């Protein structure tokens, strides 16, 4: 269907080509005011027309123009200059850089490319030169800290892991916080952000609010991130080569370690003994320790004070399983162009190894092509292609490995094998009830996950000489995944065989219920098509009709269509050969298809928007968008989202420009916007189905416990934002603080009809019903401060400060019953409840004086019982007899886990165009994490804190009963404030120094020969006692599952050397 429309548009466009009278030729050269270098790629346009060109590699241009008129010279990052044509046929122009940062053109959220000065909404933008070359070479990592107001966090250090992105507020529970990703105007619906090569991106724009995202309708509520790929520049052939190597070391900023001492039963020689009374030994024939340790952690006389110095020794499992890993990135880009066409091609590869031993790597290759051609006067065609091939051989999820390792007593020697060389899996409960040997998984797992991503955008644009512009875009985004996951036949493993003789099955598999291994093949694909047709009509009373009123009208009509099909196919061969290798799936004994799934989804809508501008002084716009969707309940009634915005630019008024205030405040704009945007239900949320399942040789039917809802509607988020953009000049005429640009926005939003699976009473015979049950509310402020602190002849210093503060809560829940949600990280006490913050944790609290009172004024510990308690030296009330801490009987909220604010400080220095230096600090304040990792390590006396002595009632010792009690009192593994930690942090995200030898030594024919030494995450200041305060073990981009740390791979610090070569 998209194709048909494209063709018809092409047809409509092609008949409208008209010629334009041309009188004389103007030539000239554009240079940079600062250093006189030529400026290629500058747009030169005859004002009020579409007649124009761009400068070539030497900054030169040539243009046929009428006798009279004005030429406009514009280039991103430079002040636009207008020159009235006189008699001369040579017009040379010097452009100076725009320190106000406000002259950029943005397109995201506006529909029509708009000068930032005339924008009534807040749009953040970052250009490639401001993005760090992160070791992952991915755009998502590079954006951290760069977008004022956004919370972008690196949630895991696993190679290829995505980031958590929260723009403005938590607006949905059903679909997570991920914003919509556009690439060159087209939604990228199949490929994930971390697949995009950082080197191919020119610029990123971010629209955070619903007010701006209305134009994206039912998919815009979480905000929009738009990527723009690099384009070739007129007349300039560029070859850029970049090569980098980084060494990554896992972070352990909290100094997590295992206790050096233990409290197990020992004999006279300090040998750890079993219930037989004999020292525990390793049975190498079977790969087991002979007996369980004898450990009575609740014995109030037991202390964690015995060294591992006899039969069983202390092993540092972190040192054993973690390793420094390397990342290698290479990229080559060629770009160039003429007046009629331009191209940019790049090829790159990124290879990152796991920080866990023998766990594989993540490898990504990208090819990007951006080709534009002017087919006829005013008619341009652009094709943008991105191909990505991702190969992932990571064997085991980090959680599985870390959990097995963290829950092992340090006495476990994981380097031990059996006499026949097998790696043991279950070394007996001796090493910990939940521990297993991660090396076993690595030995028997093979993972080969291959993804190919294709993103193809075609854009046909026709500008009529006057008034109307037509634009059609078609994007096809396809991802195919072929993954083989093999668990080898383990029947011959000596340890596995031993357990079989003991009646126990110990093995790893995907589907096999026996130890003979399986090979699962996943064949998945996602096809996403987006078609977008826009007609824009612009009328300017002054320019076009000679009126004295400077009124401009911009009308936009837009239609877009999205069609997505997800396909998933999983089959498994069960029972793999043990006697020979290699083999393939055809050599196995049985096959079964486990999943064959298709998810079609169609949505389309149209937008009508009308905008009026009054000179440079004010603007107002209003419009609406209507969307239809296959996911909307009960038929196909559209949802309509209204919008409106307005700005007043006081500094554009004559009185301002002539007054003294203009000297220090040359720019002041006030703006406000209102809009609604939606979040679609999941494709099948409205379709009630019967689940067929194979039972033996027949098929059984049942209604699954999660019930769909035919009446489901879209989630609607509405927002008001007000803001200001201003520029200060503090010491005009000096080199200091000349342009300080401040953009500040306050926003307030509400999501109605937020969807979630709400419990039904179990006696209904079902579990949950998907319903528009929640109302959510959020608000926040954000600002960014960009300034050139110093701008001297040789040295330049730019500073950016980004700040964001936001909070989201649940306003109401239908039926008012709290919804209990289970964290992916294993914690249970997230409760979604009206009036509470989203992601708030409930749990038991410690008290710090024996006569502490609850909120109702009653003693926590009845007065008569207080005698039995005392305050330990660590300030915690404990029972004198049991030495266990007291936890409150009731559960209390631990408060808002979300950050109070996020802030980034970015500084860049350049010295004489060859030396650059920069650093970025990210500060997340008031952030909290539930340290579930530590709680698990507390359970069995593994955490190093067990060896910390405390004084209880005059007795000092590393009392195991206290530490065990922290885990077990009130509720074993219950949610306790003891483990709820301040995870605020200040992190040196980036620091880099670059030296450009080409410029330093003026090497001929070489534009750039730059060596950059960079560090990432080198230093962190935090009180958090876990590995890394930035990680989150919840589901990626979950609305509520954000604040738990449970055995997730921490981020890593990197030292990176990069060589950038440009010709």
């Amino acid at each position, binding site marked *: 269907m998209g194709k048909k429309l494209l063709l018809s548009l092409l047809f409509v466009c092609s008949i409208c080509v008209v010629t334009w009278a041309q009188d004389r030729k103007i030539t000239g050269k554009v240079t940079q005011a600062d250093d006189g270098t030529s400026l290629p790629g500058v747009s030169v346009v005859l004002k009020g027309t579409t007649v124009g060109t761009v400068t070539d590699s030497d900054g030169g241009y040539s243009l046929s123009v009428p006798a009279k008129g004005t030429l406009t010279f514009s280039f991103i990052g430079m002040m636009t200059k207008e020159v009235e044509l006189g008699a001369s046929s040579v017009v040379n122009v010097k452009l100076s850089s725009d320190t106000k940062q406000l002259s950029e053109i943005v397109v995201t959220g506006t529909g029509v490319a708009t000068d930032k000065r005339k924008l009534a909404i807040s749009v953040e933008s970052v250009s490639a030169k401001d993005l760090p070359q992160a070791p992952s070479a991915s755009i998502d990592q590079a954006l951290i800290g760069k977008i004022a107001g956004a919370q972008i966090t690196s949630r895991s250090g696993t190679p290829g892991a995505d980031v958590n992105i929260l723009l403005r507020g938590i607006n949905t529970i059903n679909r997570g916080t991920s914003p919509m990703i556009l690439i060159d105007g087209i939604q990228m619906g199949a490929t994930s952000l971390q697949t995009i090569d950082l080197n191919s991106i020119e610029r990123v724009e971010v629209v955070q609010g619903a007010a701006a995202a209305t134009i994206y309708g039912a998919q815009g509520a979480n905000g929009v991130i738009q990527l723009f790929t690099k384009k070739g520049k007129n007349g300039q052939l560029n070859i850029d080569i970049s090569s980098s190597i980084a060494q990554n070391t896992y972070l352990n900023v909290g100094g997590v370690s295992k206790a050096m001492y233990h409290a197990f039963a020992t004999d006279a020689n300090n040998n750890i003994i079993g219930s037989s009374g004999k020292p525990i030994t390793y049975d190498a024939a079977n790969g087991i320790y002979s007996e369980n340790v004898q450990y009575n952690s609740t014995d109030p006389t037991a202390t964690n004070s015995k060294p591992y110095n006899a039969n069983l020794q202390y092993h540092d499992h972190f040192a054993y399983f973690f390793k420094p890993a390397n990342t290698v990135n290479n990229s080559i880009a060629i770009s160039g162009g003429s007046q009629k066409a331009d191209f940019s091609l790049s090829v790159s590869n990124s290879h990152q190894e796991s920080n866990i031993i023998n766990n594989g790597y993540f490898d990504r290759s990208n090819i990007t092509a951006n080709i534009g051609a002017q087919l006829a006067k005013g008619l341009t065609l652009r094709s943008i292609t991105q191909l990505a091939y991702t190969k992932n051989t990571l064997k085991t999820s980090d959680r599985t490995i870390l959990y097995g390792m963290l829950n092992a007593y340090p006495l476990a020697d994981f380097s031990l094998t059996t006499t026949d060389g097998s790696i043991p899996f279950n070394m007996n409960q001796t090493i910990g009830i939940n521990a297993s040997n991660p090396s076993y998984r690595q030995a028997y797992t093979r993972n080969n996950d291959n993804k190919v991503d294709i993103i193809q955008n075609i854009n046909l644009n026709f500008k009529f000489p006057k008034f109307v512009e037509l634009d059609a875009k078609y994007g096809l985004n396809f991802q195919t995944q072929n993954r083989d996951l093999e668990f080898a036949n383990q029947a011959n493993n000596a340890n596995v065989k031993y357990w079989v003789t003991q009646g126990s099955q110990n093995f790893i598999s995907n589907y096999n219920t*026996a130890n003979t291994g399986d090979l699962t093949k996943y064949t998945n694909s996602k096809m996403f098509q987006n078609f977008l047709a826009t007609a824009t009509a612009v009328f300017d009373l002054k320019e076009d009709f000679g009126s004295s009123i400077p009124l401009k009208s911009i009308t936009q009509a837009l239609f877009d269509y999205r069609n997505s099909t997800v396909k998933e196919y999983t089959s498994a061969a069960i029972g793999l050969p043990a006697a020979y290798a290699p083999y393939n799936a055809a050599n196995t004994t049985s096959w079964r298809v486990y999943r064959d799934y*298709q998810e*079609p989804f169609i949505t389309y809508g149209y937008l009508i928007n009308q905008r009026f501008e009054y000179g440079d002084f004010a603007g107002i716009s209003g419009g609406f968008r209507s969307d239809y969707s296959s996911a909307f309940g009960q038929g196909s009634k559209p949802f309509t989202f209204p919008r409106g915005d307005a700005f007043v630019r006081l500094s554009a008024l004559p009185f301002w420009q002539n007054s003294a205030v203009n000297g220090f405040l040359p720019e002041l704009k006030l703006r406000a916007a209102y809009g609604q945007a939606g979040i679609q239900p999941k494709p099948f949320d409205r379709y009630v189905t019967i689940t067929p399942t194979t039972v033996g040789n027949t098929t059984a039917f049942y*209604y699954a416990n999660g*019930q769909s809802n035919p009446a489901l509607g879209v989630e609607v988020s509405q927002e008001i934002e007000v803001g200001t953009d201003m520029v200060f000049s503090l010491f005009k005429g000096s080199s200091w603080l000349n342009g300080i640009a401040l953009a500040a926005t306050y926003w307030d939003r509400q999501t109605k009809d937020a969807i979630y699976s709400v419990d039904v009473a*179990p006696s209904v015979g079902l579990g949950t019903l998907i319903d528009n049950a929640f109302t959510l509310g959020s608000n926040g402020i954000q600002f960014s401060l960009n300034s050139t602190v110093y701008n001297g002849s040789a040295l330049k210093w730019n500073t950016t400060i980004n700040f964001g503060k936001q909070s989201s809560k649940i306003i109401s829940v239908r039926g008012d019953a709290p919804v209990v949600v289970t964290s992916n990280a294993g914690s*249970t006490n997230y409760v979604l409840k009206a009036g509470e913050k989203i992601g708030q944790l409930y749990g038991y609290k410690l008290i710090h004086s024996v006569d502490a009172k609850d909120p109702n004024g009653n003693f926590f510990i009845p007065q008569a019982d207080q005698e039995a308690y005392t305050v330990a030296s660590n300030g915690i009330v404990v029972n004198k007899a049991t030495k266990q801490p007291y936890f409150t009987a009731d559960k209390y909220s631990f408060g808002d886990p979300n950050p109070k604010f996020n802030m980034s400080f970015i500084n860049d220095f350049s010295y004489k165009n060859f030396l650059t230096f920069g650093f970025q600090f990210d500060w997340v304040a008031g952030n909290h994490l539930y340290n579930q990792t530590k709680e698990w390590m507390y359970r069995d006396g593994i955490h190093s804190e067990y060896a910390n002595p405390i004084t209880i009632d005059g007795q000092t010792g590393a009392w195991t009963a206290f530490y065990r009690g922290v885990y077990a009192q009130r509720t074993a593994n219950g949610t306790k404030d003891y483990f709820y930690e301040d995870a605020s942090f200040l992190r040196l995200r980036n620091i880099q120094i670059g030296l450009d030898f080409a410029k330093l030594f003026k090497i001929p024919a070489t534009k750039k020969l730059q060596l950059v030494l960079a560090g990432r995450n080198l230093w962190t200041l935090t009180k958090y006692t876990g590995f890394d305060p930035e990680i989150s073990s919840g589901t990626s981009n979950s609305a509520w599952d954000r604040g738990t740390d449970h055995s997730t791979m921490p981020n890593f610090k990197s030292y990176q050397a990069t060589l950038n070569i440009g010709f």
Partner: protein
Amino acid sequence: MNKLKIYALTLVFSGFMASCKEQLQVENPNQPSSPALKTESGLVSFGEGFYITGFKDVKYYDGVPGYFWSGAIGNHELMGDVIGTDIANVFINQIGCPNQVTLDDGTVLVNPNSPSKQIDFIRITANVNSTGFQNSTYYEWAYMYNLNNAANTLLANIDGVTFTGEADTKKGVLKAWAYWWKGYAYSHIGSIYYAGIINDKANGEVLNGTNGNYVTKEAIIAEANKNFDAAAKILGGLTASADYTATMQGLIPNFNRVGKGGVLSPAMWVRNINTMKARNILVNTRVADMTAAQWADILTLTNSGVQATDLVFTGRSNATGDFLSPTTGTVSGKTTGANNTYKISERLIQDFKTGDLRLSNNFQQRSSAYIGETSRGNAFFTRWNLINRGAAGSEGSASVITYSNTNAGGYELYMASSYEENQLMKAEALMYTGKIEDGLALIDEVRKAQGAGLAAVAGTGLTLDAAKEELRRERRVGLLFRALSFYDARRWGLLESGRKNAVALSRTGVVSTKATISYGYLDYWDVPDNEIAYNPPASGSAATKNPK
């Protein structure tokens, strides 16, 4: 001219909007929707689906206790002290942790958990809505109401569908199937929860809901029997014709139609019902409170209960674990071996009589006692483990029952009544009504059937107390893993009075043989808080909380 083009374009758009609209009904191409149910074969498939919806598909799941037959029933067997555990998922270590164990040397092992009494644990920790999936008391309720709802849905659709062949027979089988499982579900609810809800609404295609009128456990048992009677009445009019058999084969998965499982004749099915009705009386009345009329009812019911050659409702695994996984689908599977989730209880082992071949064929003494995580319990320490497929190194003795078989399809799970249960209920009724020898003869019959190899106790002149002890032991041993151990502990008063002369181990493996165990368990659970939160009791409801 420009305007014209805009109009033209608008027209094109409108055309698209119209054609796009048809595309919006994408449906769900992966699964059928409700019309698929409303055919003869659809209804039979839906009836077979009871095995899934009733025992495998509720909103919470934790793989360690697993589904109904290993998890929900695991709670029964833990509280019945035939197994123990130091695994803490869904608090399985706490639901079956006695309040205290007093060893021979006077050492008292208190429940080391917090709260340290099972009743407090249920009230404070487990049965709180915010505890979510860790609420041990949620599962049996949810599975059984799922089963009830599936049966309601089947009943609601039978009469609207046209059947081929012997339509009345097929309809009758499906209706009997639905009433039987409703009776079964209410039996489970009324035998473990203090109150329940009678819900005849069908939820699935649409949400018809439930009601807030909670009724007593006695009323729930009455409802169970009412449904059993409805099934029996229909079955009384059916014969095992070809269409009867074909329909039953559609309802009972092929892997369950093995051994004692299979297509029950209408008469066999009625006898299964009678045994279940006898159970409903027996397990819900303290043995001390049984009336002569109740014993008489049990005698009447068991006299027309399951016979030795009758087929019964069984469950078996298959390699793909469609209904039960071979190794983890049952309490038996999860108890098998030295290092499994559940550990065999010393109190079960001591209930075997000397020389009982069922002990030697199924259990093995460990080289050293299993002590485990002492901070998680006080009674799971054990010297024994359950052997897979009989005595070590072989398939065991074919003439002796095996309690475990982790081969696919190897283990036969009794889902409802069994011949042994029927005979032992009858034996008990006989003994309590003065016919001790008749009762003992039935115990001998059961032992013989299971290959126990024990000398007959009938004719040895046992006193009533000695006969009751034989019965007690035989119910423990002969009905092992048939989800009856907690009911027995409750009706024998063990929850309150505890157990004396028990075998128990210290934390260092020292064996006591005269230990005293105080269980202190709640006899009937409160209604799960998740139900209360979403379906608060209407006025006039029975108490939803056990006053204990």
